[in-house]
Structures are given as C-alpha cells and as structure tokens.
C-alpha cells in the first residue's frame, strides 16, 4: 500500500526536515549520491570522545531520502560511533529482510514499508551509507550504485 510507504511521519519529515544546513566545527563529513535519481546529500557530524554530539545534513532528494536523513540525524545525537554503526546495520536489515524486527528501532520503524518498494530502498539508505562513510572519516563521495 502506498500509505505504508508515505506514512505521516515520513511526509512530515520530508516537508519539514530537521537538522538541515551546515554544522559549525564539524569533525567528520561525507557526501552521498544516488545516480539513479540524482539525489545528493552532505552529512556533517561533530563527534566528541567517540560520541556524536551533533549531526546536520544538506542536499536535495525525494521524500523518502529527505525523511530518512532527517530522522537519522535525530536519532544519532548522543550515540557512540559503535551504536551508530550498529543502527546502520539494523536499519539496513529492516529494509531488506522480511523477518526484520523493528522493536528496537523506535521512530525508524516507519521505514519498514519501503521494503515493499524495492526501487526505493536506495532512497532510504542513502543517508545511512553517507553516515557510514563519515564515520570512517572519509571525505570521499559515496554512491548507492
């Protein structure tokens, strides 16, 4: 169902994305690109003592990728790098595996509907792939392809 994909919270975050713009004194950053739809994303993080203190993103994308980036930056704050990496894996599972359990994913569980739209999985994971690159502290561009 189309409403499973575009749930209220996703529409809300796509229309009013949180944590957008540049981050002063960022310590890690990465750029993501989805060549399929032209979505571009810059993610900046401020990591102190192994903990993500702040996260912001900028870029243009579809509702799914924008909402995903917005929700991701919200849930990242206060997490350790290890926790963030774990979250990346859990999120990826949620989108690709039917058996995935979303109980510990909180708000991110709204993306489970994306699973039924294989062409859109990359939209939802773009921000997360970009996060992974930022955590590895590479300034290189990542691509979903």
């Amino acid at each position: 169902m189309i409403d499973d994909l575009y749930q209220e919270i996703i529409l809300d975050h796509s229309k009013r994305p949180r944590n957008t713009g540049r981050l002063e004194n960022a310590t890690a950053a990465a750029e993501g690109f989805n060549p399929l739809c032209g979505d571009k994303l810059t993610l900046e993080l401020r990591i102190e003592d192994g903990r993500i203190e702040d996260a912001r993103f900028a870029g243009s994308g579809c509702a799914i990728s924008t909402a995903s980036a917005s929700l991701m930056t919200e849930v990242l704050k206060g997490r350790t790098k290890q926790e963030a990496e774990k979250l990346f894996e859990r999120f990826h599972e949620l989108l690709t595996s039917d058996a995935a359990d979303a109980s510990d994913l909180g708000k991110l569980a709204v993306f489970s509907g994306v699973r039924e739209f294989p062409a859109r999985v990359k939209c939802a994971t773009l921000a997360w792939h970009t996060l992974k690159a930022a955590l590895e502290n590479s300034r290189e561009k990542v691509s979903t392809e």
Partner: protein
Amino acid sequence: MAHAVKSFDAAGIRKDFPILSQRVHGHRLVYLDNAASAQKPQAVIEAIRRFYSSDYANIHRGVHALSERATRLYEEGRVQVQRFLGAADAREIVFTRGTTEGINLVAQTWGRKNIGAGDEILITALEHHSNIVPWQMLCEERGARLRVAPVNERGEVEKFEFSERTKLLAMAHISNVLGTIVPVREAAAAAHARGITVLVDGAQAAPHMKVDVRELDCDFYVFSGHKLYGPTGIGVLYGKSALLEAMPPYQGGGDMIRSVTFEKTTYNAPPYKFEAGTPDIAGVIGLAAAIDYVNEIGIDNIDAYEQELLGYATRELEKIDGLRIIGTARHKAAVISFVLEGIHPHDAGTILDRYGVAVRTGHHCAQPLMERFGVPATTRASFAFYNTPEDVDALVSAIHKAKEMFA
C-alpha cells in the same frame, strides 16, 4: 480530444498489444514509458514464435533447407529496413544490438580512422549519454575536442557552430527527455557544406515519424528495434555505401571475413564486414514484423495521431497547479517531461505507478541536459499510438492524487 484523428482507432489498436490488457495494482495499465521501450504487438510475438517453431537455423553458411530459409528471412529483414529508412541499397543497413552499439561502432571504426589530434566533434546539449560518452572516449584517445551546441529555454537547438576543425556532427533526431525535434536536415546540409560528416541518433524518431535518410542526407542513422515495437537486442546502423566501404571492420570473427589464413585475412564487404559472429537472427525477424505492423497502420497516421495526443496531454497537464513542463519546443514529439512543485519526481513516479500509470523518473540518461534546466530529475510521460485520451486523463488524475498526498 475534440478532433480525434479520423480513421485512427487507438482503442482497437490496443487489442493488438496483449500486455496492455492487464491491470496493475488494481488499475487499468496506462503505459506511458514508450521512450524507454515500447510494447510489442501480437504480430511481432507471433513472428518470433513462428520463426523458432518452423524456420530456425544459423544463417549464411548452411546449404540445408532451414538455413536457406532463415538466411532468406534475415536478408528480407534487411531489405525491409532499407525501405523503411528510404536507403538506396540494402547493403547500407548494418544490424547492431541497438542505438548504443551503432554509435560505438561508428566511433570505433570511422572515428578512429578519421578523427585526429586537435579535431572537433560537435554534439548538442540534448543528447542521450549514448551519443556523448562514445565521442568522449574517442576524443580522449585521439586528443580531439568535444563541443556542444546549446539549447534555448524551450529546449531547441538554435545554432550549430562549426569550426575549421569540426569533423563530425552527431545529434539526436528527437530528444528523449524534451521531445524536441531537431532540424537535422538543415543541420546536415550546413555540415556537409563544410565537408563535415553527420550522424543522427534516431532512437526516438524512427518509431514516431517518417524517416528518409536520403531526404535528410545524413551519413549515418542509428535506431533501436525495441523502441519501434520490435524485440530487444536488435538495432540498425544505416551508413552511406562509400563510408561503410572505407571504414575498417568493427569486431573480428566469423561472417565478417572473405578469407582467413594465419598470415592475412581479407574482409567481407559491408554490411557483413560489421556483423561478426552469429547475429540476432530472431531479432531481425521480429524487427521486420514490427516494421510491417507500423507500415500497416502508416507512420504518417501514427505521427498525426500522436501529435493530437501530445496537444491534448499538454493542455491538460498545463491546467495542473504547480506543474511545469520542461521542453516546450515548437516542433515536438509526444514526450512530456515535467516537474511538480514540492514533489520529487521519484515520489511522483512511485505514486503514479500505484494508480497503474507507468512513467519514467530520473535523469533519463541525459544528466548534462538536467543540469541545463536546473533540475535533478524529471517525471516523463512518453506516448505511443496505442495510448488514448483516457490514458492522459488517468495520468492527470494520478498526479492530482500525488498532490493531495503531499499537500
């Protein structure tokens, strides 16, 4: 539509295309992705089935009945294409895998021989990647320069500026994104006046308008079977005889040779020189059936009907608040790219699909053109003669649904 083309029975024609009668997500399928690939009439499906069921064998070398039959059908297909394009001789028709391979073939044979350091190749700003990248590769290899004729706000190529060093003009006949019909005849005449060779990418034109390569006076013309209601994997390169004769071969192998010894190989004459290995025989049979089918309806009738459909669709889409059409050339084919305020094309495409409406979203293999118009992507509805005004209405109503969702 107020003045539906008389004697054109799109509803009846739809019945020739078995795939169109299905429902998608509970809705009538409205297939508006014809610029990417067109659907196949029963006549094409049946011709391929018949060929494999009763006439199939490898061609050209067999003396047995099946091989002779298959060879005859294959070569009749070539004559069919020759007539379809108005070429002077069937030997000017080379079978390829598609438009992309046709362009690469010319780049690697004619191009390598004729493009040198400091030379220039002129393309236009509305090219598909397949008419950009092979030339970039060639330029890099030869130390040549790629130049681009710009398009105006409407998406028209206004001016082809040649230099002393321009050796080739390579241009689309119709833009797959904007629908712009490029004045290739005039451009070819201007190029020829300066001794410049001309290649036309006819991928979007061959299925939708009368093409006469002698009237256009282009040196090369390429198109794909799958956009012309034929099978995938087959395409055509037309080249003027004198050019094909002088070109080195493309790939080496069987069929493209006259004699082989370990010391020296002499090459076959065109078109065989460019058709190494067992070709897509069934593809040619299917393509010939597709051309038969198109001829039966009449390409001019198709063109006229699609123009009416384009007019209707343009008027209806323009009524939608926040919808902007990208590509408003005065001479246009039935391709409409648009963007919706506040809705990313990718989301629009997903929602339209849920209402049975198949459109394409993205950059349409034309990233430089997207940049020119300052959009990351568009939604594109591209029409064929089996589309109807009801299809347009379904598109419009699905767009309204998308707008409600994102309101």
